[in-house]
């Protein structure tokens, strides 16, 4: 490995003359850091080789776990070398190889340079640590979870999985915006491929497509941001970029404060972030993305990829701060709050536990954005960090349930799972996750959410318009969150034990998937027949339990991973107490990076500082929030207990049902996701489809029609002239005579 570490970069990185020399404060990082992204890529390639060799074993999983683990270790090594376990001293760039280099002059801004290089600072490493760490764990989990697919599907899954980690590392570690974009689109691709993993399910294919396209809308913003950044600063490499931004000047030295770029570059980036992190109005893809295998949901759609938007804004925070009016940040704050609330209301009414988790992810991402918007990158990053662990735990628990109950995810059909034989670890892990998500006092989620909530009241409305309103919305959402989280817990994991297996029961034991795990032809035949059989035998798929079905309790890998994650979720709270002046370890990591917001004092000067400091009902928000949010969380849990546990005797019926009548159609609307998908379909998709059809018709009739008409003209003329060739001598003679006269007349007329 050492040999590779030394040879590979040298081989790839033959530094050309005139290539970018890192800025003054930015040193050269360890060249072997490039292994962090390359190891997953290698793993992916090896899985591809496995697919080519039609390997039918768990080899790909071992490869991926090993490589990702190595990648995690490499990340840790970079971190430790750079001054860990605390934050790193500064930033450094590890040059991989020249990627895009194109110069059209020698002056500033006359070269487009985007190398395959890594920007190593605390923020990057913070993200990379949990990305690679979680990825390793989830890959381990998946090695068992996906075991029914051993063969081509298994190979494919792990290839994509590792590729995702590669893309995510590029996104996070890239030292320039195009490399970020490479990762950005790369994770989108892997998300697309993994959502569509069960590619025979039309819903999965549709969901994958939706995810990619909605993300592309966000990407458009990102691309515009990149372009504008380049034109403004003449570079898209972080090191020189942040240098200029730090000085508040553009590439030619003009001050940027008050310029339109200072307003619009952040807005462009913000749009990109909204797409990737599923914020209003681009959140619609994330719930559908649950069509993918659960480990994917856990890693990509909960812990890592969806936080890329947060990362982007955090990474570009200096640019966001350039705008004195904080337009973009205000939008970010409000969008975050509204997304959090909207997703929470939808989550309350869902029955599919994975979807509830998906909406809770959207909602929690809303918190993170609100945090970014109200100038607490620390809070946002901390929430990203804690959320990554507990949400991964939650998803993996859901996955275990799904795995064990043949794809059953409906909370009306499961009950008391935690007390079934072999499900103890899952139950405990689920409880830990739920407490975190609900913001139960002294959990990690509690601290991170508090930090954001408090900051909403700290940040004065004069800086971020309506910051305290954002806070109130988030407080409300916190209650809702606690409610729907524990709704799941009380319905599924505790209470009387009963279950109905999912539709995947009854054939090919524990098969979730009809992946091409067999050579074409042979297995397909069996599978198709089996499916037909299943459809004939079991219409509807809802059958009474006990029909020779036994829940499949999770095995060692799943339990181990769940245990580790549950413990990690708990321990994440402890990081709040180290580096206390920086609001915990995460805060320290953020503070020592470009995402550091020096506080209003530094930012706005002393005179405005304390005068504008906000308060929460006259109290210091930081202190008050410890109590307020704890109370709100507990109230939510209590309500859930009242409505979904107390006196519940079956799986399908809960005390809450009695309330439904009182609320009218609202729960149904909420369950229908407030008809947002339908609205989009009606307002955007349908008109666009109609427009496309119109264009198609125009193309056929008018654009091509004119061409055809032009093509027909000679023949038409010919047909018109043909009677002149009637074969009669005297008519020819008349034609000649007439022609002579005509020409003479023309000449006479013209001259």
């Amino acid at each position, binding site marked *: 490995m050492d040999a590779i570490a030394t040879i590979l970069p040298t081989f790839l990185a033959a530094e*050309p003359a005139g290539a970018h020399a890192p800025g003054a404060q930015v040193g050269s990082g360890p060249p072997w850091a490039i292994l962090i992204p390359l190891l997953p890529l290698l793993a992916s390639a090896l899985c591809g080789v496995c697919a080519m060799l039609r390997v039918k074993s768990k080899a790909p999983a071992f490869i991926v776990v090993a490589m990702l683990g190595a990648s995690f270790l490499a990340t840790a090594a970079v971190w430790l070398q750079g001054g860990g376990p605390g934050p790193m001293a500064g930033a450094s760039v590890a040059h991989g190889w020249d*990627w895009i*280099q*194109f110069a*059209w002059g020698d*002056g*500033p*801004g006359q070269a*487009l340079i985007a190398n395959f290089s890594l920007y190593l600072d605390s923020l990057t490493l913070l993200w990379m640590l949990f990305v690679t760490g979680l990825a390793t764990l989830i890959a381990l989990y998946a090695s068992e979870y996906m075991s029914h697919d051993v063969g*081509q599907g298994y190979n494919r899954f792990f290839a994509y999985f590792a590729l995702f980690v590669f893309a995510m590392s590029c996104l996070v570690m890239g030292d320039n915006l*195009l490399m970020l*974009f*490479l990762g*950005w*689109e*790369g994770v989108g*691709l892997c998300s*697309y491929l993994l959502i*569509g993993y069960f*590619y*025979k399910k*039309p819903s*999965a*294919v549709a969901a*994958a*497509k939706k995810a990619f*396209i909605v993300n*592309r*809308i966000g*990407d*458009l913003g990102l*691309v*515009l941001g990149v*372009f*504008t950044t*380049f*034109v*403004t*600063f*003449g*570079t898209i490499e972080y090191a020189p970029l942040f240098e200029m931004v730090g000085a508040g000047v*553009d590439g*030619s030295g003009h001050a940027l404060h008050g310029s339109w*770029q200072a307003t619009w570059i952040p807005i462009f980036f913000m749009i990109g972030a909204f797409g990737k992190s599923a914020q209003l109005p681009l959140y619609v893809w994330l719930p559908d993305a649950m069509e993918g295998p659960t480990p994917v949901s856990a890693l990509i759609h909960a812990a890592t990829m969806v936080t890329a938007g947060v990362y982007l804004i955090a990474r570009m925070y200096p640019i966001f701060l350039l705008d004195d009016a904080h337009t973009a940040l205000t939008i970010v704050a409000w969008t975050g709050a509204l997304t959090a609330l909207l997703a929470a209301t939808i989550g309350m009414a869902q029955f599919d536990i994975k979807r509830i988790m998906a909406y809770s992810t959207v909602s929690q991402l809303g918190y993170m954005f609100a945090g970014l918007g109200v100038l607490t990158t620390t809070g946002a990053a901390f929430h990203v960090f804690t959320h990554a662990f507990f949400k991964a735990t939650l998803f993996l628990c859901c996955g275990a349930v799904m795995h064990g109950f043949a794809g059953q995810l409906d909370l009306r059909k499961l009950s008391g799972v935690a007390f079934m034989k072999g499900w103890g670890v899952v139950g405990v892990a689920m409880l830990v996750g739920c407490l975190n998500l609900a913001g139960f006092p002294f959990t990690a989620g509690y601290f991170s959410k508090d930090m954001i909530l408090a900051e909403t009241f700290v940040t004065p409305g004069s800086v971020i318009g309506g910051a305290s309103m954002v806070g109130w919305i988030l407080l409300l959402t916190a209650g809702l969150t606690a409610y729907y989280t524990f709704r799941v817990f009380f319905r599924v994991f505790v209470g009387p034990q009963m279950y109905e297996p999912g539709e995947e029961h009854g054939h090919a034991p524990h098969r979730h998937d009809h992946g*091409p795990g067999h050579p*074409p*032809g*042979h297995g*397909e*035949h069996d599978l*198709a027949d089996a499916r037909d059989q299943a459809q004939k035998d079991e219409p509807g798929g809802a059958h009474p339990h006990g029909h020779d079905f036994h829940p499949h309790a999770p095995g060692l890998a799943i339990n181990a991973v769940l245990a580790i994650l549950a413990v990690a979720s708990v321990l994440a709270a402890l990081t709040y107490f180290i580096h206390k002046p920086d609001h915990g370890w995460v805060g320290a990591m953020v503070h020592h990076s470009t995402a550091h917001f020096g506080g209003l004092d530094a930012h706005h000067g002393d005179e405005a500082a304390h005068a504008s400091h906000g308060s929460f009902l006259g109290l210091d928000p930081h202190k008050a929030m410890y109590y307020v949010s704890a109370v709100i969380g507990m109230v939510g849990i209590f309500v859930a207990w009242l409505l979904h546990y107390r006196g519940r005797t079956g799986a399908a019926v809960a005390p809450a049902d009695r309330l439904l009548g009182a609320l009218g159609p609202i729960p149904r609307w909420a369950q229908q996701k407030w008809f947002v998908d339908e609205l989009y379909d009606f307002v955007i998709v349908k008109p666009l*489809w109609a*427009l*496309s*059809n119109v*264009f*198609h018709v125009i*193309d056929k009739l008018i*654009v091509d029609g004119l*061409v055809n008409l032009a093509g027909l003209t000679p023949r038409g003329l010919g047909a018109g002239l043909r009677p002149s060739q009637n074969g009669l001598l005297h008519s020819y003679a008349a034609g000649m005579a007439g022609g002579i006269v005509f020409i003479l007349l023309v000449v006479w007329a013209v001259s």
Partner: protein
Amino acid sequence: MLLATLLIPVVAALAVAAAPADQARRIAGAGSLAFFGATLILGAMFDWSRSAEFQMASWFALSAGEGGVTVGLAVDGVSTMLILLTGLLAPLCVFGSFTAVSDRPRTFFAWLIALQAPMAGVFMARDIITFYFCFEFTLIPMFVLIALFGSSNRRAASVKFFLYTFTGSMMTLAGLVYIVWFNATRLAPDGAGAGAWTFAIDTLMRASRSMSGSEQAWVLLAMMAGFAVKTPLFPVHTWLPLAHTEAPTAGSVVLAGVLLKLGTYGLYRFVLPFVPEAVVAWAPLIGVICVIGILYAGLICWVQRDVKKLVAYSSVSHLGFCVLGLFALNAVGSAGSVLYMINHGLSTGALFFCIGMIYERYHTRSMQELGGLAARMPVWAFFMVFFTLSSVGLPGLNGFIGEIMCLMGAFQSGATWGVGGTSGPLGPWFGGVAATGMIVSAIYLLYMVGKVVFGPLKEPHGHGGAHGHGHGHAKDAGAHGALPVDLSKREIAVLTPLAALCLVLGLYPVIALRPLEAPVAANLAAVEAVRSVVAPAEALAGVEAEGAGR
């Protein structure tokens, strides 16, 4: 060297035509490989450190003296890259058609190979006669390939293809001849070539720049008539979907891969340096047309039912990016455009291969009859998705670099408010609106992939599932031409080089970008000179001095 490269396909074509029918494939394969080898040697001999210069020049006098026509061949970095692309696609096309063409293989392969010569010739031409010869002569082989080996409506398609492009290029000829005449007679006596009738591009390029604005505009129009049809740009694109749907697979591959590039190459090589004044004046209009074309054709793709037609329309949309980059009139845009030509050739060519492989097996390309083929043909599915992603412009694959640079070029162009901007006729609005084309392309390409590759398996009647047994299907397929259910080794061998190149160009595009810096800058010199409003006199003096220096 250049002449030898051109002659190889001619000789090979004659050999194929003369050989017995059962040997045609083998000879064609060998000939195409020889051609590819020659282009590789050409690429190796080319001194990439002087990529802006035209190297390996060879001039042949059809006759010396006044009125004699001297034809010249030489290559610069841009031409060499495009020739390499041509060379690469040639053997792939031949090997890709081994089983697809069973009827009259000699005719097919002879014409297919013969087509390579004029295509490479266009990129080598250093005089208008050679250029125009080759430009036009591509029509005949393509016409034959479509008309003889196409699908049901092939005759109409081939005629439309021929007439449409022929009409356009007649206008181009008029424009080019006008320049020749201008050089010979109207140029000031101390000018480059007053009194001498020459077709050499270098001389004419200098001469034509001294034409008046309105003259340049007319010449621009004349040139666009030919090149825009060939490219094809909206709204003169309608021959392309028809031609593509009817053409045999190899025909489509060559058509998309190289033939369309003749149009963009014409724009690059002739329009930009020849009539800079008019280009600067009219670039915004052309930019608007490109943007409209990108979105218009992209949306039309979405409602197509025929996979091949969809990809054909996507070519229209994609080449809109290419031309937009070109008319950004800055280095990034031009380089992006050249890269786009290559990348589009690779990825769209490969897509046509993929579709052809399906057509060979199922004899349909309708998305209503095909679906979920990933279950039946995972290897094919992999390639299909891979090339689709390259076409969508996924970073890390080749399509991205060209697309982003074209967009960036358009965005920068005229964005003088920033240090990273360049002077130019377009601007952020062009780049921004065109960038929505990225979304559109994702919509239609993923729609196609979602239908054809993913989703529940659907095969036309008489195939696969309908028979019930996988083995039965295999036998069935055997009857259709010895094709396995999934791709054969030969087919994988055809697609793999393309995929590898997509990956290499995506991950290490510097190899293509660095050699482009100098030629692109040289090509833009004239436009720059016209546009430097700051010091127009100086710039013009520079151009004239350059001209007088001749």
